[in-house]
């Protein structure tokens, strides 16, 4: 495959492709919010929730704290959404990614690493204790799942023999990667939840610290951050489909509908599992991350490497 086929920017023109991909990203985010709201407070009012909540935050005033680091704080709140959108650039929409490079998976990972920096700044900026504690919780958590996540991503690339997302999708024509890489799949989804500090990994924004990194945000900045979290979760669900569930592959229906269907399914599973459990406290979770997840993902990569050598994926 060449660039002109795999990149939607080349196929549809840069501007239309960017607009379409951005809209899809926002739609995925909104979808996630709806699914999550249904799980937490029930069906009532869930459908309109993303729009109403966005409207509320747009009407609301931006509020400041005494002596904040204004520049870094504002930068961070914008960065969360921007990074979530940028990670969408390498997720296939209708069979094409907005931007197709020879290092798509590393790009996705780099956006997550930048998210790390952004969320920590979010905690640092407002000059408030709860917020700062939240920022540090995020870092501690991040240190523990960054490596397993990297290994999970690399495992998919290893199996496909390419770091190009569309290549990874194409490599699953015979067999979905989730079959040979179950551990990588689970770790990827868990890390996505952790990067959006959502569900069992929501300690950085926990109620015990009054909302942590988001505790001092209001108005449009809160909207940017909350939207960024939601979009990132939606994008990650779509990415999980592309990396482990064969992308748009499926009988009868067109590719895009299969992809959407699988994405919604992944979201449902993520929300159902994530909302069933309480927050996993970082001081407990971090040890598991280092002592269990890192070895598990390494073994997973080893198994896949051996399968590659034996010609299993050929």
């Amino acid at each position, binding site marked *: 495959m060449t660039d002109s086929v795999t990149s939607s920017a080349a196929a549809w023109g840069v501007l239309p492709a960017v607009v379409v991909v951005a809209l899809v990203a926002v739609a995925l985010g909104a979808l996630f919010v709806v699914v999550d709201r249904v799980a937490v407070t029930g069906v009532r*009012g869930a459908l309109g929730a993303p729009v109403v909540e966005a409207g509320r935050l747009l009407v*609301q005033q931006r*509020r400041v704290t005494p002596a904040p680091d204004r520049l870094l704080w504002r930068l961070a709140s914008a960065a969360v959404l921007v990074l979530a959108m940028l990670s969408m650039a390498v997720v296939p929409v209708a069979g094409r990614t907005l931007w197709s490079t020879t290092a798509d998976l590393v790009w996705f990972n780099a956006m997550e690493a930048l998210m790390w920096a952004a969320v920590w700044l979010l905690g640092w900026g407002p000059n408030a204790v709860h917020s700062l504690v939240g920022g540090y919780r995020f870092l501690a958590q991040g240190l523990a799942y960054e490596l397993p996540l990297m290994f999970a991503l690399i495992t998919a690339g290893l199996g496909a023999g390419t770091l190009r997302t569309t290549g990874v999708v194409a490599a699953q024509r015979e067999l979905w990667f989730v079959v040979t890489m179950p551990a990588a799949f689970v770790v990827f989804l868990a890390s996505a939840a952790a990067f959006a500090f959502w569900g069992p990994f929501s300690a950085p924004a926990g*109620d015990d610290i*009054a909302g942590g990194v988001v505790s001092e945000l209001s108005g449009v900045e809160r909207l940017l951050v909350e939207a960024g979290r939601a979009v990132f979760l939606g994008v990650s669900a779509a990415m999980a489909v592309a990396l482990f569930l064969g992308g748009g592959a499926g009988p009868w229906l067109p590719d895009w509908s299969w992809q959407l269907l699988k994405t919604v399914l992944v979201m449902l599973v993520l929300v159902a599992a994530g909302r069933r*459990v309480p927050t996993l406290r970082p001081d407990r979770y971090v040890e598991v991350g280092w002592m269990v997840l890192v070895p598990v993902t390494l073994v997973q990569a080893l198994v896949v490497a051996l399968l590659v050598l034996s010609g299993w994926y050929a």
Partner: protein
Amino acid sequence: MDVRRRLTRWALARPHVLLVSPGPRALRWAAEAELDRRSWPEAGSPADADVVLVAGEPGPSTSAAVDVLMSQLPRPRVRIDVDRADDVGRRLDGVVAALADVSGQLAEPSGDPQALLRLGEPSEAGGQGDHGGHGDVSEHGDDGGHGDHGGHGDHGGHGEHAHHGGEVAGLPMAGTAPDRDGLELDSLRVSLGPVLPAWPTGLVLSGTMQGDVLTGARLRWIDGDRAPPPSPDDGRPDDGRPDVVALDALARFLRVAGWPVAARRARAARHALLSADEESVRRGRAAAARVTRTVRRSRFLRWSVRGIGDTHGTAGDGIPAGDVLDRAYRWCAVAGGGLPVASAPADLGALAGMVEGQELAAARLIVASVDLDGAAVGAEYGRAHD
């Protein structure tokens, strides 16, 4: 203008509410039931809130704290005071219109918090962006200066630690001190409370934080030794019902433990149990049984909080023996009708001792694992169940 107004009303149709409940807990329960019925989220911090709902008559210090809190809300903002349970719904009905009415407030320039801070005027100086507790106006006195702001709008109490760090932008800086792990970390004076999510209104935890380890912890009620007494005519008969009290405590604990879904289920069961209707009480019992079963069976909860706040076998000072998980299970048992509520109110001094040297998250769990609202009523009702 009309279009604009309608749009505003539509956008603010589901406002976030910060609940301040200095009054009897039956009143808070009514408020929470009404919020849950409307699916209006409870705000976690002033920045997140559109509405401050004061349930009950605040004492002088709490009242001042609510004023500071109000100044920390982004506009448009509304404060409503409720002192009768049957009044909550009606007052909340008016909130959206009120918010839309004051959405013109946006035009007003918001005061620069730093300028507010410099004023040194108690009701404003604490201003926004507190460190820790929201709107704590307390600690009158003994350290001079403008020491009456225990811990907000700054890095801890003014004047309390002028000896280290110096001042920047009118805020005292943290200085270093040896810590638990043998490091020299900056230490910061903080106060948690009197208003925090899932926290008894009026309680203030002050201490020094290094990283997120709390030392020198001190707990107190800002309006006197104990929470305000229940008002004579409001929901008194319900106030002491052990199953309802236990579900309430359990819901708070679950919220602090980061399990909003289960917390909501516990609250829903509590609402049903308080209903006058026989049928919903029956459903409430079943719901309570289900949620307590979920909590007891949750391996993740056990794994996550086991071992925190262990009394090492000795019960006393109103704190049941075991760790926070044992105490949460105890609430489950009480909710199922198996046990009476704790006989004596928890002793704040003993509680402060348990919180000492804990991390912030653990400290919150420990405080949430004992019934402090009960401190007010325990003396009158708790013993009756012995």
